[in-house]
């Protein structure tokens, strides 16, 4: 019981947001195309250093930090746990997102007069989102004795988790001087998936008349899993080789699409928007689902003194609310992400020895802008608003500073640096910098870095 309860409580604590406010529209980094396939990114060709070209991790919790639970401050752990549980609401969430680019690359199509680009790659992604199962936590901590009359909401269990690999191919084209359109197709290969996002039902205990209590449980719960069945029972295979196969399109497959554009109404004014992961995964292999559905009004034992036909409460319960194991195919939708930005640029960034080869980004040294991010979740969408400042410090060093407000933090300051020395591009982006003075108290941390080799675009004839 303890292990299960702890699992429920702990899983409800890890929350990663997928907002990549630093990477978005940071066009000196090719990986910014993954947040907008219509980014104004120019290159002759580039290649990401395998496994090092893009790594990002982000964990957020909307209501508590690691410190709140594990501080070595002499306060009993159970007290801290209670404080955390009772200070959260069922809409508090923990998210975790990790992406690791395995390989990536891109090239320009045609000669110097053309401005259309291909990019491709493969990355592995882990994505977990779980809401605080508050009523379950109360039952585990306190039981129902002191909660007569409270209706426990079975819908508080709402979580999803997935490990998948993504193969993608993107194309963006400068349609005219002012407009860049981009599209990216994706094939998902899901290594494992767990989702339980549409639970409903209730449980209550009130004072009764003929019985001591009126106790009713109505449940409609479903937990879908795929890719895990082999490991739940006696497993004799090679997990490493299994995961490798599933990574290389041997898992449960799905399709996705990214769309985006960049538009310059004026030379120094820029709009961008993108929709990322319009896609689904069909789970057909290694599926096992658990359904718990029914209604039970529990009255206890009812002795029959005349005929002796009394009830068996365990049978009664199992008949009323059976736990079924299903092997039915199911489909999950990828969390859909929306990004948009508006940017105003100013200041002459041309150095005296400028070769004037770049596009808009070299012309102006400074940019200020605002971004809006939204992501679908099983409940209300996640939203984040970012203000940012970008500066070309040297020709080889670009900086972006962000200030973000979202449901995890109201003072998220982030800083990103991208440096291109020779053909080698290195970038490092980190948000919630204020939290680094004591990361144990941080509710949200995001971190991205990567290494690429970029051959810059030439828009003059050699």
């Amino acid at each position, binding site marked *: *019981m*303890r292990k299960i*309860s702890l699992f429920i409580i702990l899983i409800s604590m890890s929350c990663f947001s997928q907002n990549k406010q630093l990477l978005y529209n940071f066009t000196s980094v090719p990986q910014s195309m993954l947040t907008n396939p219509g980014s104004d990114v120019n290159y002759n060709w580039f290649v990401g250093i*395998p*496994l*090092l070209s893009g790594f990002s991790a982000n964990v957020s919790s909307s209501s508590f930090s*690691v*410190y709140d639970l*594990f*501080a*070595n*401050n002499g306060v*009993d*752990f*159970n007290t*801290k746990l209670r404080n955390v549980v009772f200070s959260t609401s069922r809409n508090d969430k923990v998210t975790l997102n990790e992406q*690791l680019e395995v390989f990536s690359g891109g090239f320009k199509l045609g000669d110097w007069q053309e401005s259309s680009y291909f990019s491709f790659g493969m990355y592995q992604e882990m994505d977990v989102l779980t809401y605080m199962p508050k009523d379950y936590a109360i*039952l*585990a*901590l*306190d*039981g*129902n*004795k*002191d909660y*007569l009359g409270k209706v426990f909401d079975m819908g508080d269990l709402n979580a999803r988790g997935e490990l998948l690999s993504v193969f993608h191919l993107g194309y963006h084209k400068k349609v005219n001087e002012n407009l860049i359109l981009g599209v990216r197709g994706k094939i998902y290969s899901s290594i494992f998936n767990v989702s339980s996002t549409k639970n409903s039902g209730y449980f209550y*205990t009130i004072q*009764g008349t*003929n*019985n*001591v*209590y009126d*106790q009713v449980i109505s449940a409609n719960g479903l937990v879908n899993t795929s890719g895990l069945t082999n490991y739940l029972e006696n497993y004799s295979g090679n997990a*490493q*080789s299994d995961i*490798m*196969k599933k990574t*290389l399109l041997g898992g449960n497959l799905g399709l996705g699409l990214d769309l985006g554009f960049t538009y310059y109404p004026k030379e120094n004014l820029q709009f961008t928007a993108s929709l990322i992961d319009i896609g689904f995964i069909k789970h057909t292999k290694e599926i096992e689902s658990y359904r718990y559905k029914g209604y039970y009004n*529990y*009255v*206890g*034992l*009812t*002795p029959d*003194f*005349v005929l*002796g036909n*009394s009830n*068996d*409460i*365990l049978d009664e319960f199992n008949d009323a609310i059976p736990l079924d194991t299903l092997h039915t195919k199911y489909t999950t939708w990828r969390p859909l992400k929306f990004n948009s930005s508006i940017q105003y640029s100013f200041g002459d960034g041309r150095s005296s020895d400028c070769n004037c080869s770049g596009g808009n980004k070299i012309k102006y040294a400074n940019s200020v802008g605002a971004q809006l991010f939204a992501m679908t979740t099983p409940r209300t969408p996640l939203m984040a608003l970012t203000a940012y400042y970008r500066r070309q410090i040297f020709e080889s060093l670009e900086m972006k500073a962000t200030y973000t407000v979202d449901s995890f933090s109201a003072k998220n300051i982030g800083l990103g640096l991208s440096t291109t020395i020779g053909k080698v591009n290195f970038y490092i982006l*980190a948000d919630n910098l204020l939290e*680094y*003075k*004591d*990361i*144990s*108290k941080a509710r949200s941390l995001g*971190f991205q*870095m990567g290494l690429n080799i970029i051959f810059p675009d030439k828009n003059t004839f050699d």
Partner: protein
Amino acid sequence: MNIFVENVIYQYITIMNKFLRITFLSVFFLSCSSDLDFEQVNDLKLEPIAVANLAAFDIKANQFVVGGVEQSLVGDVMDFDVFSDVDFSKNLSRVDLFFEFNNTINRAYNVNFYLLDDNNSKLYTIPFFVPANSGSPIVISKTEIFENTKLDILIKTKKVAFVITMLPGTPLTDASVGNLKMRSSATIYFLGQ
């Protein structure tokens, strides 16, 4: 996949993983953290207290009369293997059983609640005396607490039985009114460590 290729890929992944980990960790070492103690998880104690119905009955006075003959002894044995479940019982620390009788029949009763094992052998008896009703309602209640070694009796219980003995008094007929009602509940104290 070709074993050689697979090996080369694993080697590369291992090296790159190390590089990533070092970079990642160095960023975190640059930051500060309050003193944390994850071992505290071992102190976790879950002590929920659950309440639930145990049993209930409602016998009308005329149900004690079958074919014009008064039945002075009735009873029923029921399967009850809730507390004997191993996963359930190992987390038990105390169980309170509460009983409440409400008698509106003008006869007195001795009621025994038996805890029985698989072979119907008595493990424990909770006796009740319910006086006859002569105008004002009779309400009798009792709470029996099972903890420490007494809890083992409950854990061994596989069946329970109610046996009702009607004590001598004014004979009941098909036309007699009143009820002998009983309701009971369990308060279960868990201790998960």
